[in-house]
């Protein structure tokens, strides 16, 4: 892409109108203003795309296998371990990493912090896609995937935590679609739609906070159904939901830092100067938020151990593993965030964000898989399960990139708004 943008000043597209005064068609916008030949040329020049192709060549048949021969054919899902990677990573990992939408929505729209504005749309998109793909992961995992709407419309079990998750994720998904739509409307040039949404934005944002607090917490509360099965250190009847909610705050923020870093480094042509110039500053500010959320999280984690009198467990092998998780996944990035903020080093904050993202996935996998059934045996996911997970994550990556390349997410639309 960089190659073309040097030759053709009208690319990347930022306006409805070409330099010669004619309109860009939607088709041209989709092809990024390139001819299809040129488009594929740049597509295949990118080694990342080759990697994606390799993943899909094996992953797609595996997904087909899952739908034709059942979960048994591709996963190690069992009666002892009903949940595997699809939910452990896809649902419990993706959802906290997508908390960015409501975090920055709240900061910008509710608290009126205009300084975060350049990254708001990216955060919203990150949220929307994360949730969407979490649902996709769920669709791979559900035994009767064709009954996805049942908990909403056919047979309601409102006393269950998962009911709350289902409703909230579904409503929140629509809220996020609404929040990202303005970017789409700008891009296709349908301003009426944008104005309608604009009027609802505050209501949407508030709804977003409520729904997010509850369903992020609810994902944690799901594990409180298994008091004897999840290792006591990862389990807390009283605090589980706060742990999950609180960690989703820095998870979401860290994920935006990571994705904005990737976009700035690998899709710099798409970012406008406003975005590029303010990014370091915003990153450091987000880092501050992360470090605050992390210290809160850490304190509540310790309170939970103290409350349930679990100090003894800390001396066992599981205890060491627990402290390793907290040490690498939380304390280390927490200090890095803090130092990064103090020295105004966006680089350090970015590095910390990578670790924090890893740490949160690690924590969720621990809760859902590693420390689940801790008194039984250890479940090791089937390689096909791993590959399908990677395949769907790649699809997420491609969709993410597809949208960022086109819609005014990290740049401002020059045309009518």
């Amino acid at each position: 892409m960089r190659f073309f943008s040097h030759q053709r000043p009208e690319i990347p597209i930022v306006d409805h109108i070409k330099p010669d005064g004619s309109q860009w068609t939607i088709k041209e916008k989709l092809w990024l203003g390139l001819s299809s030949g040129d488009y594929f040329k740049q597509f295949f020049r990118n080694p990342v795309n080759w990697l994606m192709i390799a993943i899909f060549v094996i992953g797609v048949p595996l997904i087909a296998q899952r739908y034709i021969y059942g979960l048994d054919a591709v996963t190690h899902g069992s009666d002892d371990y009903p949940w595997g990677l699809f939910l452990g990573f896809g649902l419990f990992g993706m959802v906290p990493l997508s908390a960015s939408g409501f975090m920055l929505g709240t900061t910008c729209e509710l608290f009126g912090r205009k300084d975060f504005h350049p990254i708001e749309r990216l955060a919203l998109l990150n949220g929307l896609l994360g949730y969407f793909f979490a649902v996709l992961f769920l669709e791979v995992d559900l035994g009767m995937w064709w009954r996805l709407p049942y908990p909403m419309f056919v047979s309601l079990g409102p006393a269950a935590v998962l009911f709350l998750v289902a409703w909230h994720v579904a409503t929140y998904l629509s809220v996020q679609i609404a929040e990202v739509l303005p970017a789409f409307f700008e891009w296709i040039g349908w301003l009426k739609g944008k104005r309608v949404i604009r009027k609802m934005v505050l209501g949407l944002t508030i709804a977003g906070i409520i729904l997010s607090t509850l369903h992020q917490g609810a994902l944690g509360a799901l594990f409180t159904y298994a008091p004897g099965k999840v290792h006591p250190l990862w389990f807390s009847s009283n605090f589980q939901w706060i742990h999950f909610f609180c960690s989703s705050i820095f998870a979401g923020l860290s994920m935006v830092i990571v994705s904005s870093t990737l976009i700035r480094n690998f899709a710099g042509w798409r970012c406008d100067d406003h975005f590029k110039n303010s990014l370091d500053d915003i990153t450091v500010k987000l880092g501050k938020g992360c470090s605050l959320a992390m210290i809160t999280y850490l304190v509540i984690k310790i309170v939970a151990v103290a409350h349930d009198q679990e100090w003894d467990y800390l001396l066992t092998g599981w205890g060491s593993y627990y402290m390793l998780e907290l040490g690498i996944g939380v304390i280390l990035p927490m200090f890095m965030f803090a130092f990064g903020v103090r020295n105004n080093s966006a680089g350090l904050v970015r590095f910390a964000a990578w670790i924090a993202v890893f740490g949160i996935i690690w924590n969720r996998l621990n809760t859902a898989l590693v420390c689940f059934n801790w008194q039984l045996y250890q479940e090791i996911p089937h390689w096909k399960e791993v590959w399908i997970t990677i395949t769907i994550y790649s699809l997420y990556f491609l969709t993410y990139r597809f949208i960022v390349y086109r819609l005014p997410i990290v740049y401002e639309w020059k045309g009518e708004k």
Partner: protein
Amino acid sequence: MKTTVSRRNFIKGGLAGTVAVTALKESSSQAATFEGYPDGMGVLVDLTRCVGCRSCEAACNQEQKLPPPEKPFDDFSVFDEMMHGQKRRTDETHYTVVNRYDVPGLEHPLFRKIQCNHCQEPACLTSCFVNAYTKTPEGAVIYNPNVCVGCRTCMIACPFYIPTFKYSSAFNPRIMKCIFCYDTRLKDGKPPACVEACPQEALTFGKRNDLIKIGRQRMVETPGKYEDHIYGEHEVGGTAWMYLSSVPFDKVGLDTHLPKEPILNFVKDFLGIVPMVLTIWPALFAGFHLLATRKDWLKNKNDDAHEEE
């Protein structure tokens, strides 16, 4: 101008949202207080009587029309089968299994049948978000495969590792678990097939309340024979199927660390905050918003006033 409009809309939106979700919450708190039926039936499993003949397994297979087993039901080599270091458990082709426990110091091994315990406040039921489970007044916990979406949360929640999933089926998967022979027997007041087949009456069928009396009577009449505990009387809020044993229950593969209260109680902390978040959050964040944007708002208001003049 912009902010004033947003304020009004925001309050409208916020309220509507709250009402909608509070309505849902209403129904959920009702369901959350659900308790077992006092007159429900149950079964008392007496481990000192069981001889490990597997008649119950055979009868269940026949009654529930389960697929043929790998080995005949009179093949006792299954007692030595181990999977992941665990003895046999219920699975998609076995609603019930009998396992052998060689207890040190005991002349004869003990055998323990396991199946769904038909909890008074079943974790499977309370965790299911499509209401696929029902606790019938007769005491059975039954399952409706027509609404189940296959999320398998009930399997996560069941403290006894009972519900199993038909992983092998792509188009017709479902949960497989003992249903107390509800459709074919229990609802007509008949004992389940396994109980009827048991030659030793290791399985005593009756009203749960009566079974507790019977269990106590056995303890009184044969002092020293039994552990002074009916497993299931209080475990996870009480179960309809209960156990008597001559050795501590953990020696025969029953989890003795289970809480006395229903599993749902562990979730109540979270369920309790739901209404709080729903009611306090909108007001709280509305307040934050007003504070944070007060200056803008005042300025806009003045501008508006000027425009209108």
